[in-house]
């Protein structure tokens, strides 16, 4: 049995949820003002549960409606009909039949469309033939139809408990060199790591706040490659992030907070002896990024006409080797030695033509030439491009890709 708690003005919603923990430890927080409590296994009957819920929420001064039912839609319908109503199992359809469509939390436009078709109550919706209704209104309509008939397949998702794990150090002097900061940081991370282990949790990210002597605060968000409670890993990541940072005055306070907390220990691959360590990769990437001030990337290819549009760079994300499905079981993927194009910075070149083909490029004779290949990107582009591309071998052995755009010639790259 589920208990629906519907509150009109939920200013202190989180506090109300914390108070409801006294009624049931399993609370599905749908949105501010609406929650369901799983009452299976709780001592007492529905009346007693409702009385207890009223007692714990009494001090908040909000208008409260409670309802009970075998699933979410039934419990909510009961709360909607009248405060303190109970929907017994088997009577869902009867209860829902006279209620408005807004109870399904669907868009106002859809409600309006249904109203134009004469469907204003859940009973009207439940009476429609399932197949034609779903075909007309899409796959989401299948769920509405089920809900209107009192069938609710939405899972009960208990809210996670907010556990704050942090450590700080203030008012114990000032740090002017990095060794002092790192020493203090290590001490704080030891505490954070111990707290994480005590709670059986792992942190997916760390947040560091540094208070400076001139009353400024610098903050750093440090994502971890894999959630961990390992102190050394957290320290390495934090230190890598701080390597490129400079501060205008001495540091007088530090606060480290563990974020994105997850349950349980770290995943270990059973046959992953040869895997690279994602944490070590993440630390290295953080150090490189701190040093270069740019992201370390990986490339993905895509279909495009222009050479320079055929790939995009994304931040490098490391996965353990065993999680790459592409290569597992396919060790001999086709390998070919292919000429590699090197994209030079585009520069204008002087080209002399003979029989409408490039004969001289920047004063060098063209030994061989193939092309042109017309590349035209007109549709759906802000700046349309039309160019003719050629591959040429020059007398000094350079094997290059050149192109003509308008009346100008450009060097695009060389094959190496």
């Amino acid at each position, binding site marked *: 049995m589920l208990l629906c708690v519907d509150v009109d003005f939920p200013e202190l919603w989180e506090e109300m949820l914390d108070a409801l923990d006294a009624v049931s430890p399993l609370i599905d927080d749908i949105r501010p003002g609406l929650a369901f409590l799983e009452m299976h296994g709780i001592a007492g009957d529905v009346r007693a549960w409702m009385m207890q819920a009223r007692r714990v929420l009494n001090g908040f001064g909000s208008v409260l409606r409670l309802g009970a039912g075998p699933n979410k839609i039934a419990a909510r319908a009961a709360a909607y009909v009248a405060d303190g109503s109970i929907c017994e199992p088997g009577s869902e359809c009867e209860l829902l039949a006279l209620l408005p469509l807004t109870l399904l939390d669907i868009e106002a436009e859809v409600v309006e469309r249904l109203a134009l078709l004469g469907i204003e109550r859940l009973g009207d919706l439940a009476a429609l033939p399932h197949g034609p209704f779903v075909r007309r209104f899409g796959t989401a309509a299948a769920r509405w139809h089920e809900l209107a008939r009192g069938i609710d397949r939405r899972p009960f998702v208990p809210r996670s408990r907010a556990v704050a794990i942090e450590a700080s150090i203030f008012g114990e002097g000032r740090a002017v060199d990095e060794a002092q900061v790192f020493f203090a940081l290590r001490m704080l991370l030891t505490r954070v790591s111990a707290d994480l282990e005590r709670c059986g949790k792992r942190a997916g990210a760390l947040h560091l706040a540094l208070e400076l002597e001139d009353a400024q605060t610098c903050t750093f968000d440090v994502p971890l490659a894999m959630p961990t409670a390992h102190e050394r890993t957290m320290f390495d990541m934090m230190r890598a992030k701080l390597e490129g940072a400079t501060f205008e005055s001495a540091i007088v306070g530090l606060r480290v907070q563990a974020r994105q907390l997850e349950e349980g220990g770290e995943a270990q691959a059973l046959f992953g002896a*040869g895997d*690279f*360590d994602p944490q*070590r*990769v993440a*630390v*290295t*990437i953080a*150090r*490189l990024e701190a*040093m*270069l001030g740019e992201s*370390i*990337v*990986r*490339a*993905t*290819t895509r279909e495009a006409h222009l050479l320079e549009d*055929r*790939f995009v*760079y994304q931040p*490098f994300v*490391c*996965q353990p*080797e065993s999680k*790459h499905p*592409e*290569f597992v079981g396919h*060790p001999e*993927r*086709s*390998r*070919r*030695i*292919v*000429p*590699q*194009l*090197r*994209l*030079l*910075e585009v520069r204008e070149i002087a080209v002399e033509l003979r029989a409408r*083909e490039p004969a001289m490029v920047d004063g060098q004779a063209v030994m*061989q*030439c*193939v*092309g*042109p290949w017309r590349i035209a990107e007109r549709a759906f582009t802000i700046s349309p491009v039309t160019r003719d*591309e050629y*591959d040429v*071998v020059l007398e*000094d*052995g*350079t*094997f290059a*890709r050149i192109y003509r755009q308008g009346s100008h010639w450009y060097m695009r*790259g*060389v*094959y*190496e």
Partner: protein
Amino acid sequence: MAALALSEAAVHARRKAFEALKSELSAKASLPSLPMEGTVATAIPELDRLLAGGFPSGIVATLEGATGRWSVAAGLVSAMTRRSLVAILDDGALYPPGLADAGACLERVLIVPVRKALEVARAADILLRSRICRLILMPAIAVRDSIWARLATLAHRNGVLLIVMATRAGAALSAAAELRLHCALERIIMRGTHGLWGGFAGFELRVNLRKHKHILPGRQARVRVGEVSDAALR
């Protein structure tokens, strides 16, 4: 005087014999070389034969020449991404679809954007120390001799193959590198006629071994760099 003249003649004779032996050994293209352990095989059989199994790991190697060096490197990247991560210090000229066409898994290629010589050296240093990649490709840079020596030591200590791409290696890099290969364009292979109806099918490279710890320098391999595929280039 006679003794001195005799000794000079003997020295001369020895020198001639030594030169004859040296030229004979250099000329032997099929000099049997035993496969070495701990080598990183490339995707190029001719090159693997030349290097007795592939590139030794834990060294600084150079790929030199104007044409073909990146094609050889792409074969190596393709082979290495099967087993580990590869890092490329990119000066902005990298064309990733070419690597993908060579069979490399781009998901395992860290592309580190570098602009200045010092950034290249520092990035290589960080990557070598971290041991996250077994192969690092970097452009040749003008830095102090001691930096090359340090990178070579780090590569050796951490078992990482550091390949420096250079048109021509300088003295300091040549001294630090344990393996030097020079690629030269031998000929272009055409498909069809020239112009619109033709196309480059690829090219043939002559790869010269200029320096190796265990193999006599001067040996060569001819490498055919495959089809310039329509999909990849047009």
